[in-house]
């Protein structure tokens, strides 16, 4: 098993704070968008883009690249921030999220945003798309790996289970799912809206290798991603136990911040908390 040194973990944690600051800033400027599910997804995205995945921002269509598909498209701000910080496009684009005549759409679109693989936003499609990418990889004997992030509420969609069966039927061990298990969807707690438990049993019974981890712990995320790479003959689902709105005290586990941006006071409070965390991490470094 690979050991991850403190330096790497610290570096990634600092990037994650930076990404969270971008998200708050983008949503405040746009006065629209989804903070809760963007913030819960950040740490896994940072682990993927800043350490784990083989990708090339200078050549986003490199045929050998690892692929990441954001099936829960409403977390676009998190992916946009990660892509910008990885130099897929300029950071200043982030200021124009959801603005007319600008690149960054409310939800990801693959035809003109560099680094976006699939157009998402209508839930339930991404795992099927990822299956297609993984099947093509097998067919062409490519070494790339496919990652797809699902929302937990998103797995209400029937298509997810069609795709879950397909990935296991075709033994797609070049596919890793990441389930952002934050327990909240728009109408409330996932267990009250449409029960998902036992998430572990569901994915296991569909033939997936299932790992359950703390979705905000960099070391656990990296370890799980690494493990999923070595899984043979079956896809892996990493259940990321996360907190919706993670990193901003008053947004955490607060369903009201699913799709509502911060107002000016909330913006200042949120940035204050993130700046404090950033200074603390920098001091530790």
């Amino acid at each position, binding site marked *: 098993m690979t050991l991850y040194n403190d330096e790497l973990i610290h570096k990634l944690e600092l990037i994650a704070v930076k990404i969270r600051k971008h998200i708050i800033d983008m949503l405040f400027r746009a006065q629209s968008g989804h903070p809760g599910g963007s913030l819960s997804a950040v740490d896994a995205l940072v682990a993927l883009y800043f350490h784990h995945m083989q990708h090339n921002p200078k050549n986003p269509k490199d045929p050998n690249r690892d692929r990441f598909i954001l099936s829960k498209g409403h977390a676009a701000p998190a992916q946009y921030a990660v892509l910008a910080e990885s130099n897929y496009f300029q950071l200043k684009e982030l200021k124009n999220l959801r603005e007319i005549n600008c690149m960054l759409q409310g939800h990801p679109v693959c035809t003109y945003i560099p680094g976006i693989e*699939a157009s998402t936003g209508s839930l339930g499609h991404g795992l099927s*798309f990822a299956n297609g990418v993984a099947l093509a990889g097998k067919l062409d004997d490519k070494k790339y790996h496919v990652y797809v992030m699902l929302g937990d509420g998103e797995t209400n969609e029937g298509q997810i289970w069609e795709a879950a069966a*397909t990935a296991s039927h075709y033994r797609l061990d070049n596919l890793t799912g990441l389930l952002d298990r934050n327990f909240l969807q728009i109408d409330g707690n996932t267990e009250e809206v449409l029960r998902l438990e036992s998430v572990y049993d569901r994915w296991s019974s569909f033939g997936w290798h299932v790992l359950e981890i703390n979705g905000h712990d960099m070391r656990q995320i990296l370890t799980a991603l690494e493990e999923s790479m070595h899984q043979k003959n079956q896809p892996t689902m990493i259940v990321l136990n996360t907190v919706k709105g993670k990193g901003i005290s008053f947004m955490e586990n607060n369903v009201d911040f699913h799709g509502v941006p911060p107002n000016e006071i909330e913006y200042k409070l949120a940035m204050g908390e993130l700046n404090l965390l950033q200074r603390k991490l920098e001091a530790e470094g």
Partner: protein
Amino acid sequence: MKQLVNTRNTYGGTLVELGKKYPNLVVLDADLSKSTKTILFAKQYPDRFFEMGIAEANMISTAAGLASCGKIPFVSTFAVFATGRVYDQIRMDISYSNANVKIFATHGGISVGKDGASHQMIEDLALMRVLPNMTVLAPSDALQTKKIVELMAATVGPMYARIGRASAPLIYSKEDMKNLKIGKGIVCQDGDDLTIIACGTMVDYALDASKLLKKENIQARVIDMHTIKPLDAKLLLKCAQETNALLTIEEHSIIGGLGSAVAEQLAEHGYAKKFIRMGVKDTFCESGDPQDLFEKYGLSAHHIVEAAKSLI
């Protein structure tokens, strides 16, 4: 005597030929490969055939993923499951994403027959036509089907094509199809009194009608409008100039398909011609033999003749 050819066999056979030409061509089917005839490809190229089970939504999005890696996916099932059932998947993953996916549906229209209205797709052309980036095709006979499938593989972009379940009479020769182009309609029969614009299975009926009309000294021009989108407006407007009346006929609802596309162009270009849309008149049909259904729902050659005469 008309020579009937099963266009589904033509489709499957053409896929096999194209499989050799295009190593990146892949085929997906949803547990209907024996009916859509993609099984012919599956036997020849098992590695490039993906059986997706009865899970059409997943099939469409998977095809988009394959296309994103440079594959040319042909996706097949019955028209009713290939469009309405998976509209959102087509909209997001193929149309909005401009994915190079070819949806090839069989069992379009009411000639499905005895399976009844649940399986008789009469809205697919409308549903696909409204999607940006989408090309919409309805070939009329086996040789046109072959050519259309070849053009679909050779042309980049999202495409939808539908054929019927029943065998179709041969209309064309190989030579006729040599210069077929997507988006260019064919004048199958010349005439100056009115223009009958048909697509898919109805082209043959339109030609039959034109023969009957000739006996009554009415010269009907017959257009095979195999491409519903992009519509050959140039040819259409030429016909509107040169003939006094127009009639469309399609094995589809009169709402949203070929007839609507023609009406839109005529109206926008100021042609207040005598005009009738023929097709299924905003209703569901029922179980029955195709010929009986065509008779009951007004799609037989004599219905076209009556409609044409009412326009003259």
